């Protein structure tokens, strides 16, 4: 408990000191706010602020563990019931969080244990593989590689979808590092605000490609010949075919590895061999585009669909669907602190995105690690979690640790471990 009081004071001090730097969300007075305090695991919702000033004094006063604001605008954001809030519209929000998709390095830094049979394991897991119970406790760690993957998804989202397809204006996009394992992107435009959940689902389907029907796009079998998609058809057909062509132009062994990869295509070596034999003819057919009969020995509709499904997975965006569909969600407030890391929810401009490295940011204005002490203060902690992976922040590595370890680490590392609730002060 006393560690929570300590963290709360730190957060309060941060809001006090940095209040001028915390950006103002647009239409602040029409947004609903929500907070999770240090004292209790509850969400305090349905709060409205008439100005940034009032919000800041609330933050300084309470130093909440988590701060959220709505993507939606309401005439009465403080009303307790949705029907009384007088909903005016909602920004389009995309949440990309490595928690929701596979990355290979998770085997190294994410772990879990089963509360039922006490099995321990690493990597991404939803339920215990041994007893099949979902009562597992997960310990997900921050990782530069994962954050790179997430950043890449955001870039794909912007450069492959939002700008070329949706015509989204750069000035309408708000990008932020979530303060933990992902990024948020918010599009603020009048036109998007009026879309309801069903219409948002259509956009999500477009962005993920998950519900693409290859038949609708033209794949089919006629007189024992497979007719494929055409790169001339603007939209997903074109995206898919351009990706196919790009991959076919890669070195043979790279293609081979991709096709064999369980997480991408998962073809058996028999089919991979056949594919590689015919790949040049295939490339010829699809680049010329006059006839569109796809012929690779052993490839029927099922295999072609399997191939295209894998391609779609490469193109589509790994986003957290409900966040984009639901119009009453709250998302982390830019400039606020993430209570599970002590990192700042950092807004980034599109032209800063390329160079942005949340765990090792050189530009001080964009640095989410706000508790880095200039005086090189250190702190003594005892590890309370059974095992911790390496923590790499600002180029320095700490750990791995096991339960009972007494460590002395820089202030910002201590804040991180305390926020993660894997250590206590001594």
């Amino acid at each position, binding site marked *: 408990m006393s560690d929570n009081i300590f963290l709360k004071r730190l957060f309060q001090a941060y809001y006090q000191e940095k209040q001028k730097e915390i950006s103002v969300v647009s239409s602040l007075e029409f947004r609903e706010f929500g907070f999770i305090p240090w004292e209790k695991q509850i969400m305090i919702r349905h709060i409205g602020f008439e100005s940034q000033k009032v919000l800041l004094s609330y933050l300084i006063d309470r130093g909440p563990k988590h701060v959220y604001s709505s993507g939606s605008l309401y005439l009465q954001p403080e009303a307790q019931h949705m029907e009384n809030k007088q909903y005016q519209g909602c920004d389009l929000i995309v949440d990309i969080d490595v928690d929701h998709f596979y990355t290979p390095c998770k085997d190294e830094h994410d772990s879990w244990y089963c509360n039922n049979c006490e099995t321990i394991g690493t990597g991404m897991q939803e339920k215990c593989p041994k007893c099949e119970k979902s009562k597992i406790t997960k310990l997900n760690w921050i990782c530069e590689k994962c954050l790179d993957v997430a950043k890449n998804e955001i870039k794909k989202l912007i450069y492959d979808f939002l700008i*070329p*397809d*949706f*015509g*989204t204006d750069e000035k309408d996009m708000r990008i932020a590092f979530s303060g933990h394992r992902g990024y948020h992107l918010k599009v603020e435009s009048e*036109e*998007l605000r*009026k*879309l*309801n959940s*069903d*219409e948002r689902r*259509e*956009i999500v*389907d*477009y962005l993920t*490609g998950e*519900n*693409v*029907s290859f038949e*609708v*796009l*033209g794949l*089919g079998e006629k007189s024992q010949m497979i*007719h494929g998609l*055409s790169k*001339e*058809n*603007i*939209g*997903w*057909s074109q995206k898919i075919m351009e990706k196919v062509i790009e991959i076919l132009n890669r070195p043979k062994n790279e293609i081979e590895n991709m096709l064999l990869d369980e997480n991408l295509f998962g073809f058996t070596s028999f089919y991979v061999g056949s594919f590689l034999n015919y790949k040049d003819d295939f490339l010829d057919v699809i680049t010329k585009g*006059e006839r*569109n009969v796809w012929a690779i020995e052993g490839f029927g509709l099922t295999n072609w669909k399997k191939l295209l499904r894998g391609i779609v997975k490469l193109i589509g965006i790994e986003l957290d669907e409900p966040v984009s569909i639901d119009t009453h969600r709250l998302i982390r407030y830019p400039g606020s602190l993430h209570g599970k890391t002590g990192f700042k929810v950092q807004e980034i401009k599109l032209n800063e995105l390329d160079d942005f490295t949340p765990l090792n940011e050189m530009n001080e204005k964009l640095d989410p690690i706000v508790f880095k002490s200039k005086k090189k203060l250190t702190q003594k902690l005892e590890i309370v979690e059974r095992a911790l992976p390496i923590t790499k922040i600002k180029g320095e590595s700490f750990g791995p640790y096991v339960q009972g370890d007494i460590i002395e680490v820089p202030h910002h590392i201590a804040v991180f471990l305390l926020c993660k609730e894997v250590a206590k002060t001594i």
Partner: protein
Amino acid sequence: MSISIDLLKHYPWLPSLKIYYSDIATQDPTAFIEEAFLKYPDGELEQRISKIFKAAFNNLEEIKDYKADELNIYLYLIVKILLFVLNNKPISNRVANTYSKQIYKELIEENEDASLYDICKDLKLKFEYLNLPFKYGVNLNKSQREILKTSFKIHFTDYLKLAANLHDDYRKLVHNALSEGYVYVQKKDLIRLLQEYVRRKLIVEEVKDENNIEKFRKNLLKIREFKELYGNILNNWELKKEDFEYSFKISFKEGSDLSNNFPPCIQDILRRIQEGMNIVHTERLFLVFFLHALNYPTENIIDIFSNLPDFDRKKTKYQVEFAKKKEYTPHSCSTLKSLNICKANESKDEICLEGYYSKKLDTQKKLSHPLFYIQLKQYRNSTKNKANKTKIEKKDER
């Protein structure tokens, strides 16, 4: 910019209606309807509105003689008011379907893109018109390679709004040509989206609290023509609601006498006319509609009335012909009960009191319309005549 009055007469559901007819838009609906019937006293308005409802109840794909005249504007507004006071979802849905399908036909038949362009503008859609059709794809599924091109592209937000209720797979955004915020749409697909817009515009949300409508309806029903129209639609609905299983031809035929099979309510009116007693206006209407529905020759109908004390051949002829033009449906049993015209109790008639056994639904059903009475009566006579034969003569077995 606003659209031409001719386009508005053709498509009165366009938002510009409010600008051209601002006097109507601000008018109290009762006053508006009174004015409309004054403006069109020859029954054409009623006739064309009835046609729409009839077409809708019969699930027809088109409305015969849809005309782009000024009356069409009044017609559209009155249909909307009718749907509101009817407050009946199935009716709303059917009318919206039929009417919007007709609009699809009308739009498809437009030769120039100009009308479509003006309509999209008037609807404040975010769209672009390309003078040079843009090629956005090919269709390789045809034997001949077909180039897909179009002059219309519509912003994806408007596309999503319009296509929201159309669940065809190929209309999903993910299967469409989306570029720089716009979806390329074929003209006929755009028209299909507009059809959907019109359909949704006509569907009135069912009002849960009847009291809210009641007062409004009461006022409107003070207008004679509106009341007739309203009653007629309900009667028609009653008649169409269930598809009747014993389908006999019940039209007037020279030499045959249907009158033996008339229901007690009609019998009673005919008897009183025969006895030279006067009948009230609604009874007169009911009888005329009823006989019209059976295709009785106008002259025969007029002759029936010749027994009445105040008979005036010329006037009666005009009224009977006018009623025919309106194509009204005779009242349903429930209407007749509320008008005190039903004679089920007095006559102790078995069909009227107990209804009939529906083989199709395997239950006893109440009689809902006097026209069914004739059919049932005929059916019973025919089976009686066949004594021991068990085979039932049904429409589809003949």
